[in-house]
């Protein structure tokens, strides 16, 4: 490639440049060698992605301004500068699906440290990947549900949902017996339940096998995991709400403000893709309690249901309860004709 340079440049000069390029490795083999790398070479002679390069440049800038401000004010807070640095690293991190396990570990550590700096509370955040041979499925018994809404309370608590806007993933519809459509159903009932001549039907994210919401995301901030759970990276989401519009089941929620959870009520058992604290202007949704289900537990709604109307399990396990329900009960799904293949079946006794 440089053959034409050889012709143009004087021989001596070219040999010099060859020698300098051979010492490009950050550590020279001989420590006493006079041809040590300069700091400039160490930083700028490395292969860098655009994102990483931007990060380094901006980090340098902030370090410079921080240095300048600290030299002016003698009371520069060490925690504040640490927080600023962590926030910069967070801002310039890569896409979650492209991260190595070490990078995931690092971002989880940064997030827990940031939360600790902010609230003095320690979290145990995980990034447990999907288990092999697992595909989660859900069944809902409409003859058993009595509309107590214990599931909603458990869900809000478990998933650190915004208390200010009273966000909730689950919605329970009160239907008149004999009517099947949800057009006439009431989801804002508040009276003794079950009401005479009515049945109850809960909706939440159905974790479609062919999800329309992930296709419309312009930044790929939402995707379907190998165990069938549709997740969102809250740090990658730009809040355009396309997914909310694309979902035919109204399963996604938007944070119009900074989510507020009283500190003593924050659930410290968190997952990066699940119930970790959201921020203003991002989408969120039910993740089948990813932080619980990937360790073998049931989702909070299933555990809280006092009637046993909610059934959860592995669709790929021929002996699981969910498979028995699919094989032995008359099941149906909402808006099946759309081809979204929800992994959430309704059935009756």
């Amino acid at each position, binding site marked *: 490639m440089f053959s034409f340079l050889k012709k143009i440049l004087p021989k001596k000069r070219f040999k010099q440049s060859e020698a300098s390029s051979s010492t490009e490795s950050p550590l020279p083999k001989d420590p006493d060698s006079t041809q040590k790398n300069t700091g400039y070479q160490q930083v700028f002679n490395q292969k860098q992605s655009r994102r990483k390069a931007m990060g380094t440049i901006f980090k340098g800038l902030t370090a410079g301004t921080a240095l300048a401000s600290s030299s002016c004010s003698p009371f520069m807070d060490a925690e504040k500068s640490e927080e600023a640095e962590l926030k910069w690293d967070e801002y310039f991190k890569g896409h979650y699906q492209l991260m190595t396990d070490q990078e995931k570990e690092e971002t989880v550590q940064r997030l827990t440290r940031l939360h600790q700096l902010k609230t003095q509370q320690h979290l145990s955040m995980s990034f447990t990947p999907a*288990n*092999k*041979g*697992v595909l989660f*499925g859900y*069944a809902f*018994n409409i003859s*058993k549900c*009595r509309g*107590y*809404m*214990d599931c*909603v*309370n458990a869900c809000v608590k478990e998933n650190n949902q915004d208390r200010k*806007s009273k*966000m*909730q993933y689950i919605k329970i519809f009160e239907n008149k017996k004999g009517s099947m459509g*949800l*057009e006439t*159903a*009431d*989801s*804002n009932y*508040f009276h*003794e339940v*079950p009401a005479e001549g009515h049945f109850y039907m809960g*909706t939440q994210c159905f974790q479609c*096998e*062919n999800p329309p919401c992930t296709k419309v995301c312009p930044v790929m901030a939402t995707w379907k995991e190998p*165990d069938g759970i549709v997740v969102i990276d809250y740090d990658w989401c730009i809040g355009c709400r396309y997914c909310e519009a694309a979902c035919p*089941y*109204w399963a996604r929620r938007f944070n119009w403000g900074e989510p507020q959870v009283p500190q003593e009520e924050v659930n410290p058992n968190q997952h990066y893709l699940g119930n970790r604290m959201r921020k203003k202007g991002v989408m969120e949704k039910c993740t089948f309690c990813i932080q*619980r*289900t990937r*360790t*073998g*537990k*049931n989702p909070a709604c*299933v555990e809280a249901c*006092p*009637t*046993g109307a909610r*059934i*959860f*399990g*592995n669709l*790929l*396990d*021929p*002996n*699981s*309860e*969910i498979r*028995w*329900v699919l094989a032995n*009960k008359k099941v149906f799904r*909402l808006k099946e004709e759309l081809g979204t*293949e929800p992994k959430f079946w309704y*059935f009756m*006794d």
Partner: protein
Amino acid sequence: MKVWPVLLKNWMENINRIHLIKQMQVKFLSFGLLLVFLFACDTQAPEERVKHEPFTLLIQKKSSETPSGGLTTEPYLQGIQREKVQGFPDRSAFFLAERVSKITHFPCGECHTRMVSELKELENSNTPKAHWNISLQHASKDLMNCQTCHPNSRMNTLRSLQGAPIEFNHAYQLCAQCHFQQARDWSGGAHGKRLGGWASPRVIKNCTGCHNAHNPRLEKRWPSRASSLPNFTLE
């Protein structure tokens, strides 16, 4: 005057040429169309076609050999003693939470040394009273009374309709005599409540874990909260 025949000849030749060109064009077009038809056939990739297969069939095909993905519910079942459920050979082994050790006064024979009818006669005396508040709200009185399930002779066990003893831990066998449909659903997983989590082992609640055997109907009550979402309709 000889110009006209020459012009006419040229004109005719021109027409012939145009005709030829047109013929060529038609041949070319038809050949092109043939090519288009040949290559516009269904070239959809086989993986794409699989998508249209019913999802439930796909699940059956993909069924895995590691049913719980290497997970277990053992850590969440601490403090729960379990008892293997008997009498459902078509289901793989499952368990229920043991109950006998949690009954406050057991064995029952320690108090029930006499017939219940005799004990009832002592009602006005100062002898200790137990479960006096039980009133049977289960089926009609013609069909069931206390002795249907609690035999006078052996108070430490329950009794089947044929008189065979049934342990309290296996009370589901007693219920299943009439509620066979519910028992079938319960053994499969469509009825009842799972303890711990979704992974194996499967531990579930006994019938009496949710239903009061003497008054099995679940009570009406107020919902634990009101919905805060707008009353939209799913259409």
